[in-house]
């Protein structure tokens, strides 16, 4: 612990100690501080939740015991019971006696706590928790390659071998494919699609995963010269596919038509180290894809980067030491192997379920959702605090009476504290269904993904602890002020009935609370509005191609054992077969699914004579497409020709670029007929590609992006194995069954990985906006409702507090209209102050959203997104003040004065 941090901890604890009476503090304070510091040091090594729990208990104990020490209950007490049953019963009776208040408070607290906890569960599952089955996850590290210190790149296998064999700071280092690949599993006479990761033999050692049957990989089983065709199943696959039969181990199965022997089953629950779930694991050196031409090169070529690595830091070693050592090892490898680019480096990050590259954007987005839901929680708490304050004012006479007849202040505080805690505990309990519902709704929003997720948004014990801590913290923060107010009673004057003129202070507090509510809920609704406007803009946006009436069929030709020119022949047959279906207008295929968030490269780009040679180096995106591709997705060419059948293997290499590429490379001149060079690690000069056409700019990765330089090359000349087939059909015609049948007729062994509407597939890119609009909208709408209740409460409170004054004014001749204006004016001043505050807050959030690239063709100061919520807010304010104002004006002055 750093000295600064220690000082801050001491300061905070010093503040907490002030809860105790001075005499107690002087006697025990120093000792308590020392003891606390040691405890804190022990707790600070633990997880976030343990620390939250530690601080919650510390704060609660200091406040509670401090209060008990200050105001010991008079008379004989039963030792020092924390919670007296009588207080609880009394509190319960009070809550039941005002059901409307209780219901509103519990419901709004439930929504606030539930929403915040659901987002916490999301963050917890993605960031704080390790994948199930992993032992001591804090010691796992992810290894990535950097280029000039940046990026999240993959490693080359020879580099990995060097690191694995020489590291002394890691217990084990394992290579693993970037994501599980779809494999066709045949055992007996049935086949089905499963997902498998290629891993080195050390994989299970790194993760500390146990075995439930047979054995896991042995050292040397992944030797590239003698890779054994063995496979480890997940427990789930073992149960689902093999009925957990004991005879499974030793059986032979076929993966993509290559025989493998099952050697074991991993421990239950383990489905891989990341959120991309795997059904089985095979030696990374024995992957079926390594059997094709060029496959061996993957294992021996130090320039071929293609896999990731994870390691387990030795107990006693630090991550920094491991980073230092591995970087040095990598540098040594680099200097001994001239083929490795000088710019390459190594980075170690803490292991996690999300790929390191995805962590920052995910964290930022979840943080945004968290801010929105925390805002709702504050609004809900302010509301409850407001009502508690009003009740406290009402009860001052009761408190004064009880003080006068001999109750101690400690007893009264304890009792009020119990009331507040009970209310918030009920809110926390009622939050459970809210959380379950929100979790289910969020999961239902997830679209079909190409890889099964090993992640379930569960509301478990950790979320429960979080919710409890939030409820307790909120209760102490928002519930204690009213209690204090109720007890700051001057017994004599209160008993004489001076309540109703006393105290501007509670009104001031309520005004602040209402301003907070109005401003926060307005800001939330405006932020949600920005997302709604983005979704609107996105649906009107011309992305450059047509997603309607197009079916996307994802295929993997290796599942039928076809790579290289055999894959070209296979896809050619598939396109022919599908085109013959009645109602099909065009068929083509590419490697990328546009608007799906990712990018793809098959090499670097060199354009001779380019003024700025860096301009086209980093962000050029590639796609490998068939001749029919441009017609199938209606992407027009602005110059030249599309690919044709003559652009085959052996013919001159050709390419099509987009407008942005052409503008950067030839700044307005004609692109058709020019040459660009496709470079690779082996070949820095590159091979020439003749540009035969220019395609219109389109949004490729996401709808929110600016156009990027893009280059298309023909599938026949640079074959791939993953294929996205686009099938354009007549509007309103369901051709999916016919397409499936046509594929089966051409190649029965080729499973369809996924089949979906292009429109729906493209919508994945808008998932963050959809989620934020939905959560923000719901949270904001509830927030406005609660703010309305808060304003109503304030207005009613103002009227009640000023009854006497109003009566006197009316007796002196004020008209009902003037009285209404007086009451309305005060509340409206509060509301009108809150509107600009909310707008300003929203502007800040809007700028942050814009910074995250989440706004689509919408400005962060979109007028409609600001004005519409403000108008709604004004209407709510008007409605909330109308009734109390009328009641004030309709009052009976004589009666009011008599009642005093």
């Amino acid at each position, binding site marked *: 612990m750093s000295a600064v941090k220690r000082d801050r901890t001491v300061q905070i604890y010093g503040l907490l100690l002030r809860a105790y009476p001075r005499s*107690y503090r002087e006697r*025990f304070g*120093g*000792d*308590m501080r*020392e*003891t*606390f510091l*040691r*405890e804190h040091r022990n707790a600070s090594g633990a997880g976030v939740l343990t620390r939250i729990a*530690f601080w919650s*208990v*510390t704060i609660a*104990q*200091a406040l*509670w*015991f401090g209060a*008990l*020490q200050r105001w010991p209950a008079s008379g004989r007490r039963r*030792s*020092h019971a924390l919670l007296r049953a009588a207080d609880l019963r009394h509190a319960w009776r009070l809550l039941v006696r005002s059901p409307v208040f209780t219901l509103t408070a519990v419901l709004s607290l439930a929504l606030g706590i539930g929403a915040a906890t659901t987002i916490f569960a999301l963050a917890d599952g993605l960031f704080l928790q390790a994948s199930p089955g992993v032992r001591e996850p804090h010691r796992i590290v992810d290894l990535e390659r950097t280029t000039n210190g940046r990026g999240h790149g993959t490693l080359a296998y020879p580099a990995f071998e060097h690191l694995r064999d020489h590291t002394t700071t890691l217990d084990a280092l394992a290579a693993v494919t970037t994501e599980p690949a779809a494999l066709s599993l045949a055992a007996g006479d049935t086949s089905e699609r499963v997902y498998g990761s290629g891993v080195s033999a050390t994989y299970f050692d790194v993760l500390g995963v146990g075995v439930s049957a047979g054995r896991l990989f042995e050292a040397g089983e992944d030797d590239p010269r003698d890779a054994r065709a063995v496979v480890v199943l997940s427990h789930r696959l073992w149960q689902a596919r093999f009925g957990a039969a004991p005879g499974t181990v030793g059986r032979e199965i076929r993966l993509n038509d290559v025989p493998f022997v099952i050697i074991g089953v991993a421990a239950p629950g383990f489905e891989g180290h990341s959120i991309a779930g795997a059904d089985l694991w095979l030696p990374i050196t024995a992957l079926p894809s390594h059997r094709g031409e060029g496959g061996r090169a993957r294992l021996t070529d130090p320039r071929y980067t293609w896999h990731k690595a994870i390691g387990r830091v030795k107990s006693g070693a630090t991550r920094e030491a491991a980073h230092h050592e591995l970087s040095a090892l990598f540098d040594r490898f680099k200097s001994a192997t001239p083929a490795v680019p000088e710019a390459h480096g190594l980075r170690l990050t803490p292991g996690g379920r999300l790929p390191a590259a995805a962590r920052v954007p995910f964290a930022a987005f979840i943080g945004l959702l968290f801010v929105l839901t925390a805002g709702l929680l504050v609004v809900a708490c302010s509301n409850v605090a407001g009502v508690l304050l009003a009740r406290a004012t009402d009860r001052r006479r009761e408190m004064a009476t009880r003080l006068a007849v001999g109750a101690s202040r400690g007893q009264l505080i304890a009792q009020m504290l119990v009331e507040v805690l009970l209310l918030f505990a009920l809110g926390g309990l009622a939050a459970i269904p809210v959380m379950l519902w929100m979790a289910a709704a969020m999961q239902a929003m997830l679209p079909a993904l190409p890889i099964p997720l090993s992640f379930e948004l569960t509301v478990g014990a950790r979320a429960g602890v979080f919710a409890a801590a939030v409820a307790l913290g909120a209760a102490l923060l928002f519930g204690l002020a009213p209690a204090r107010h109720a007890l700051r009673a001057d017994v004599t004057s209160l008993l004489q009935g001076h309540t109703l003129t006393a105290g501007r202070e509670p009104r001031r507090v309520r005004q602040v609370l209402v301003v907070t509510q109005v401003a926060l809920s307005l800001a939330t609704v405006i932020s949600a509005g920005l997302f709604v406007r983005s979704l609107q803009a996105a649906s009107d946006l011309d992305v450059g191609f047509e997603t309607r009436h197009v079916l996307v069929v994802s295929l993997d030709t290796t599942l039928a054992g076809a790579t290289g020119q055999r894959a070209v022949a296979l896809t050619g047959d598939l396109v022919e077969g599908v085109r013959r279906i009645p109602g099909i207008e065009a068929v083509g295929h590419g490697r990328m699914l546009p608007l799906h968030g990712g990018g793809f490269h098959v090499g670097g780009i060199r354009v001779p004579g380019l003024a700025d040679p860096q301009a086209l180096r980093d962000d050029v995106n590639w796609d490998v497409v068939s001749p029919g591709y441009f017609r199938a997705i209606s992407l027009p060419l602005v110059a030249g020709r599309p690919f044709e059948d003559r652009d085959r293997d052996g013919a001159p290499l050709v390419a099509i670029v987009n407008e942005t590429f052409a503008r950067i490379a030839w700044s307005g001149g004609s692109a058709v007929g020019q040459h660009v060079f496709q470079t690779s690690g082996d070949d820095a000069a590159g091979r020439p590609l003749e540009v035969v056409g220019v395609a219109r700019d389109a949004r490729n990765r996401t709808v929110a992006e600016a156009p990027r330089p893009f280059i298309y090359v023909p599938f026949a000349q640079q074959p791939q194995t993953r294929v996205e087939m686009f099938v354009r059909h007549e509007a309103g015609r369901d051709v999916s069954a016919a397409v499936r049948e046509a594929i089966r007729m051409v190649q029965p062994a080729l499973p369809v990985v996924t089949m979906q509407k292009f429109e729906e597939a493209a919508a994945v890119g808008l998932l963050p906006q959809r989620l934020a609009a939905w959560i923000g909208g719901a949270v904001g709408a509830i927030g406005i409702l609660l703010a309305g209740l808060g304003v109503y409460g304030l207005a009613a409170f103002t009227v009640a507090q000023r009854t006497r004054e109003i009566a006197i004014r009316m007796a002196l001749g004020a008209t009902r209209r003037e009285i209404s204006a007086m009451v309305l004016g005060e509340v409206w001043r509060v509301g009108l102050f809150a509107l600009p505050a909310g707008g300003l807050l929203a502007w800040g959030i809007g700028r942050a959203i814009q910074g995250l690239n989440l706004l689509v063709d919408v400005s962060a100061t979109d007028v409609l997104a600001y004005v519409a919520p403000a108008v709604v807010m004004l209407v709510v304010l008007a409605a909330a003040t109308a009734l109390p104002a009328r009641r004030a004006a309709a009052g009976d002055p004589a009666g009011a004065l008599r009642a005093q």
Partner: protein
Amino acid sequence: MNDTEPLKPAALHILLALAEHTSHGYAIMQTVRERSGGRIPLQTGSFYRHLTWLIEQGLVAEAAVRRPAEDARRGTHYCITPRGREVLEAERRYLARVLSSFDGLRARKGASS
């Protein structure tokens, strides 16, 4: 305090720890935690609450002398008073009676089955 009202588990464990030797706050807490197998969840606040009560009851007192070798920062040392030992002995007798009831229960069960 009399024989009929048993000590709170935390108070009992603190007394037990002090009966062994005079000690300072943090060490007592650690001993209690270990002895109870973590079943007595003491934190700083609750520990001092129990300690204060024991001092008020005259069962524990501040130790007058501290051993010179000890780290001064560890603060005040506490020791058990003669009255504390009496209460502890009463507690022992009470618990022994509880234990013998258990044993009797087991014996009867064994006989009937």
